């Protein structure tokens, strides 16, 4: 009797959980999107896309572009998605080199007169938003611990290496995050390779933690686990405005920026729908959504700058050679583990 009850229960639960057989749904007007942007922006943008085109979107939103990149590699024999959206172009470029992306030149890109530097010359990816690296301060802890000692707020990358920030600085790891790597490359473009390593070694003395994921840095800064951090400006501004986090964002001179990209996966189920999606992202509405909710810079000149952000043209950028940075990534990360070791 007891056994019957157990078996009955398990059978019942299993029957309840039985999913429908695969392959039943038609492909038709539907695309699959892998998004490295947060749920909120992804779902708002996709809803508008469906409203405009009638094409349904199945989205998978993962906060880490690297995870999606690995997933796309692993699925290369039978791609499940049509679109890889979000994350720095540095995550899209290697996929293009491996032949996993489909080239496309969106007419909208040309019509909107977006700078050609924001698109892959071969058309494998399109940039549709921008983000700049910044110095972010937790003002609560600053007022409590730094202000009484009359310490000036850091305004340049070099200021971060000052001894008073010992153990109080955090940044994303250059080994595991795009932002961390772009920071290191920016130092090389700023100072030349040997002086850059000397600077990074000094800075390392101040570092409380290299966070393994990029959002980890903003999380800990917001919670006051560190006083100063290096992170994307839009993350800091977003936290300040959406969650009233006690953060102050300064974009220093010689900063670097990421090109937030979108690309079409080769062999995806719906290439026509994918092209329509890329075209759509380059129109005003999605860029405006991304600027309003994600605080990222639009690539279009006719979309307002995000709330609380300095206009992009007023930022002072280091001469960042994206090709060189991608080319030497393995070697620089190798040297990082050898010299910094964390």
């Amino acid at each position, binding site marked *: *009797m*007891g*056994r019957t*009850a*157990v078996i009955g*229960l*398990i059978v019942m*639960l*299993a029957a309840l*959980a039985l*999913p429908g057989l*695969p392959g039943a749904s038609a492909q038709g007007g539907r695309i*699959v999107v*892998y998004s490295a942007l*947060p*749920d*909120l922006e992804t779902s708002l943008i996709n809803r508008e896309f469906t409203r405009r085109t009638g094409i349904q979107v*199945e989205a*998978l*939103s993962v*906060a*880490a*572009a*690297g*995870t*999606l*990149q*690995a*997933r796309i*590699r*692993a699925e290369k*024999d039978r791609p*499940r*998605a049509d679109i890889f959206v979000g994350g720095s172009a540095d*995550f899209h470029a*290697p996929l293009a080199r491996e032949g996993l992306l489909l080239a496309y030149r969106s007419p909208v890109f040309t019509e909107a007169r977006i700078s050609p530097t924001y698109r892959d010359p071969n058309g494998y990816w399109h940039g549709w938003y921008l983000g700049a690296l910044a110095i972010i301060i937790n003002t*609560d802890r600053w007022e409590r611990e730094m202000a009484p000692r009359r310490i000036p707020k850091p305004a340049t990358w070099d200021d971060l290496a000052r001894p008073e920030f010992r153990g109080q600085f955090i940044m994303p*790891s250059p*080994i*595991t*995050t*795009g932002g961390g790597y772009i920071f290191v490359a920016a130092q090389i473009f700023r100072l030349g390779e040997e002086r850059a390593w000397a600077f990074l070694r000094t800075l390392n003395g101040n570092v409380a*933690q*290299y966070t*393994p*994921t990029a*959002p*980890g840095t*903003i*999380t800990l800064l*917001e*919670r*006051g*686990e560190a006083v100063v951090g290096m992170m994307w400006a839009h993350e800091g501004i977003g*936290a300040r405005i959406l969650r*009233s986090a*006690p953060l102050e964002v300064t974009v220093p001179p010689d900063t670097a920026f990421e090109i937030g990209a979108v690309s079409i996966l080769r062999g995806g189920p719906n290439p026509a729908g994918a092209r329509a999606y890329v075209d759509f992202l380059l129109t005003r509405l999605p860029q405006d959504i991304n600027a309003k909710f994600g605080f990222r810079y639009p690539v279009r000149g006719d979309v307002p700058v995000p709330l609380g952000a300095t206009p992009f043209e007023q930022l002072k950028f280091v001469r960042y050679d994206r090709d060189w940075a991608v080319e030497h990534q393995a070697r620089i990360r190798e040297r990082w*583990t*050898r010299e910094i*070791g964390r």
Partner: protein
Amino acid sequence: MRAGAVALEWRRLRRHADPGLLAVYTGALLLLALAVLYPAYRVLVYPSWADYLAIPRSLRWLQAARNSLVMMVLSTASATLVGVLFAFATTRHDLPGRRLFRAAAMLPLFAPPFMVAFAYILMFGRQGLVTRTLLGLDANIFGWHGLWLVQTVAFFPLAMLIIAGVLEAINPSLEHAARNLGAPEGAVLRTVTLALARPGIAGAMLVVAISVLADFGNAVIIAGNFPLLATEAWFRMEGMGDLTGAALVVGMLLVPTVLLFLLERFWVSRRVYVTVTGRGSRIERPPTPPAVRWAVLLACLLVTVLVALVYLGVLAGAFTAVWGRDWSLTLEHWHLARDRAGTLWASVRVGTLAGVVTAVTGVLVAFLATRPLPLRGVLDFLAVLPGALPGVFVGVGYVLAFNPTPLGGTVWAVALALGMWHLPMGYQAAAARLRQVERAIEEAAVNLGATGLRVLRDIYLPMLLRALAEAFAVSFVRGVTNVSIVVFLIAPGQVVATFAILNMIQNNIWGAAAALTTMLLLLTVVAVGASWLLLGRAVRTAPVG
């Protein structure tokens, strides 16, 4: 000579295995080869030989390997110790609060692993409620010590489940006998109770040790600049999209696991632990010595407080505006979480399927592994192996192995991966109980003409019901709270709750993450509670020695 040996083997096989049993056995071997070995093989052959040969040159990986081993020793020791204490406390009928302790020990299983680490940062971090607000300390929880604490709390329930199952099965008359023969209380405890629980403790240590080795959910949040193999593998993917590097690191992780496995076999399988004789016993357990009782009680209370803090942290996070800054109560997080409520249903589906896979396969394989069948060592190894594989490894293995097949991208792939990954828990629990069963019961049945499958159904299954139920429950809950596998296998349109929660944490929406976690907790508690009530009745009516 060799032909003679083969003939002998064949005769033995014919005597012990009828066609039905053989068919099931072959099926189980094939299933494990396909669902455990093949994905692992696909990951391991992904890097080239040159990649493997370059491992010793990576300082960071060697450091990670050393750290992983240190953490394994520390966390396994503490988690097993706490597990033994809790198992003891919950199986003694004269210990006050045993229901409370049992509940406390079950709780960490319900939360996604990173939630324990998350809650402890809220409680014990620089801005922690306990450390800063209450005690005014400037504490740094990031690092190996924070990880040690978190892993102990996260993994002692696994140890407790296995050890408690064994302790409960010990015939009280043995303790009575020892006492009647004049043994002092301490000696009874040492030479009878704990000695008989040894297969359970060893099995628990094995499961905990490989869980610690494979844990990345906690490490990723709290380990700070303390590289570990599991997190290193995960970061390779997460940040760098480097499948080759991840496969390499995970390959390094397999070495200690295989050693652990062999150690456990050597230690446990050479002794005999027959306590279930089939002759039945309803004798009351003798009273626990007072000194032991108070010591155990105190230790359990302390751990219970630590567990409670996790849930307090999550609950408070779900209802307060902004942790540490604005303590005003709000329901706003719940509105955001409600939008993701559909993911809860997806979780239940996946968890149930995974639970069935684990329970059925675990008990079946445990039974088959006790038969004198050829290759049963292989079967046994394959059933323990999944516990050594970090979730990301299993996830990527399944993608590489099954993506081009119709299985890829379906909920079945997730369920099979999760079910198989948790197989060691079902298997260890069932095997530990089987080891206590005297063979005379079975021999009697065989002499009466029962076939191999009949022996399983009529003799072992009733005795294994509890193991079956526990395997299902553990696998269900772990399946519902899993992230590491799900991250890779989940397809658009099938997003489960933990996945949504992780996204929320990563995007810094901590309040809504806490709210959705609370919903997930309630759901799993209700689901497990319901099945426990049903199964509890079933188990009590089943003939257990």
